[in-house]
């Protein structure tokens, strides 16, 4: 209709995109750590759910969002330890243990929600925190610098994760353990130790992804709040070629297509709605098929480590 591509619309699309991308960023960057060390954690969605619940419930009861966030991180950590125990120490098939973890998170969050809260409630989540000066820039300020702390942190996480993975001794160890665990082991690096650490980093971030939904973006909890976002996050890691910057690209692409189709619907563009909502998924599949660079895949992905096998 009139002025489909006005400045306001573009800024609206980008603003919507940033919100949508936030949980994906936490979850997918976290998963990047786990996968870089050689562990596919398919339980991300389950961690997000239980952590989203924990963050919501603790914030509701205590009135403190910080405590809620902490609860989400703790739940993430505990579920990460569980995942590590099963897939690293006990060497269970990673795909299966991840799905198990997902089912646990889904069922447990639903049960606790019924028992402890019972009905849909809302809370005051993290409030927008305009950044001085930056938020006053015309258009851009409104678009980027008037959102809340968890959203800013999600985007700051990208360079931080890049730095950790590429510049620090820890990152070197994580990548070595994922690419050539026997080599890492032969240098006295504890392969399982690094995998525990990476899975737990990933799970804590998945926990924060859950919290970003329940106490920052949506400010409520209900059954299956994530609706599979954790699985999309896992796909984004492949899409992003196991690099935080690639993951950022994927998350932004997926979110902007979603945000774009919503805006087109609102503006009354004549696209059938079922085609519009399929667009992001379609695009993800296409992009995945085109972009996935297997050469960058951690060679030991999905393989438990046993010393002496060559």
């Amino acid at each position, binding site marked *: 209709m009139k002025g489909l591509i006005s400045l306001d619309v573009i800024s609206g699309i980008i603003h919507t995109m940033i*919100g*949508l991308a936030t949980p994906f960023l936490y979850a997918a960057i976290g998963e990047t750590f786990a996968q870089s060390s050689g562990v596919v954690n398919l339980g991300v969605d389950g961690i997000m759910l239980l952590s989203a619940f924990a963050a919501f419930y603790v914030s509701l009861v205590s009135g403190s969002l910080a405590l809620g966030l902490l609860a989400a991180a703790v739940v993430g950590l505990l579920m990460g330890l569980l995942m590590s125990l099963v897939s690293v120490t006990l060497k269970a098939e990673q795909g299966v243990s991840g799905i198990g973890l997902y089912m646990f998170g889904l069922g447990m969050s639903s049960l606790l929600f019924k028992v402890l809260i019972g009905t*849909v409630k809302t809370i005051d989540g993290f409030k927008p925190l305009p950044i001085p000066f930056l938020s006053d820039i015309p258009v851009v300020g409104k678009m980027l610098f008037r959102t809340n702390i968890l959203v800013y942190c999600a985007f700051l996480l990208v360079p931080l994760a890049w730095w950790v993975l590429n510049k620090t001794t820890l990152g070197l160890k994580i990548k070595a353990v994922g690419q050539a665990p026997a080599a890492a082991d032969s240098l006295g690096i504890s392969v399982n130790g690094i995998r525990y650490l990476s899975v737990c980093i990933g799970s804590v971030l998945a926990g924060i992804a859950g919290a970003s939904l329940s106490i920052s973006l949506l400010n409520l909890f209900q059954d299956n709040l994530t*609706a599979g976002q954790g699985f999309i996050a896992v796909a984004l890691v492949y899409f992003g070629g196991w690099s935080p910057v690639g993951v950022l690209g994927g998350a932004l692409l997926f979110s902007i297509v979603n945000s774009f189709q919503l*805006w087109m*619907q*609102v503006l009354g563009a004549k696209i059938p709605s079922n085609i519009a909502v399929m667009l992001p998924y379609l695009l993800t599949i296409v992009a995945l098929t085109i972009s996935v660079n297997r050469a960058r895949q951690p060679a030991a992905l999905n393989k438990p480590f046993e010393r002496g096998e060559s």
Partner: protein
Amino acid sequence: MRLRRAFIAFLLAVGLVGAAVAAPFRIAVVMPSATTDMAFSQSMWSALMIIQKEMGGPSALEIKYTDNMYNVPDAAAAIRDYASQGFDIVIAHGSQYGSSVQEIATDFPQTTFAWGTDVNTFGLPNVYAYTAAAEQGGFVNGVLAAKLTKSRKIGVTGPVEVGDAKTYIDGFVQGVMSVNKGITVSKTWTGSFSDVALMTAAAKTHIANGADVLTGSSQSVVGSIGAAQDNGHVMWFGTQADQASLAPNLVVCSQVYDWTGMLREIIAQHKAGVLGGKTYVLTLENKGLKMAFNPSYRLPGFAKAAAERAIKGIVDGSIKVQP
């Protein structure tokens, strides 16, 4: 003689009570979402709870439920289980369960099946169908919305364009247009019943585009609440259940599905030996549909008056709403 009669009556009464204690009436319900969804499933669940209280508690009416049955084969298994456990009435509360009901009902001719929202009883003597004339409350909400909007932009959100979500919205648009044809109503469909993040984004998009009134199928309310947190000047119109408690400062009015009347009748019929064969439609006229104004929303008198005129017109037939 009189004494004897009184004695027999007493025995009968004791016997009846005893029988009631020993064998309560039994209803089972299978639902696609949670009993606490503030929408479709909850509307049926609340009605059952009210009926149970009326009849004298769990000892008189035993209720079993299975919720979150979005997977139809799982739901079918649950429906069959309940039927084979000898429940008097099995309610399949979802339009997606139709073919399962049709199949199972023939195997359990002594059991009453009720399902909705739909109108089809499949010609089976033990199946009731039920639906709601959602367009009626939609029209009333539309009138109210048209009276209250300042930006003359209204956003509609929902998961998919089917069933009573669609008829509600069609009625809503007719209501808006009956007041002012210059108001823009734009619609977004997210394609998912459970993706709250996307629903929120959809609501936010409407708001960012200038809408000050939002409505949509009931699942979307949660998304709109999330969106309204950032922007307090938005109104929400609900449907299916009274959503005022979710967001007291946001919800203006909800169309409420009240299944109690229908349930009372089905139970009475079952006791009288009639197991099905009829379709119930909730309407404003038969009080199966109610407009619940949010008491904590300060609704201007002129708007309320217009809404009440619309209700009256629909009930007396002077206003025709196309489903």
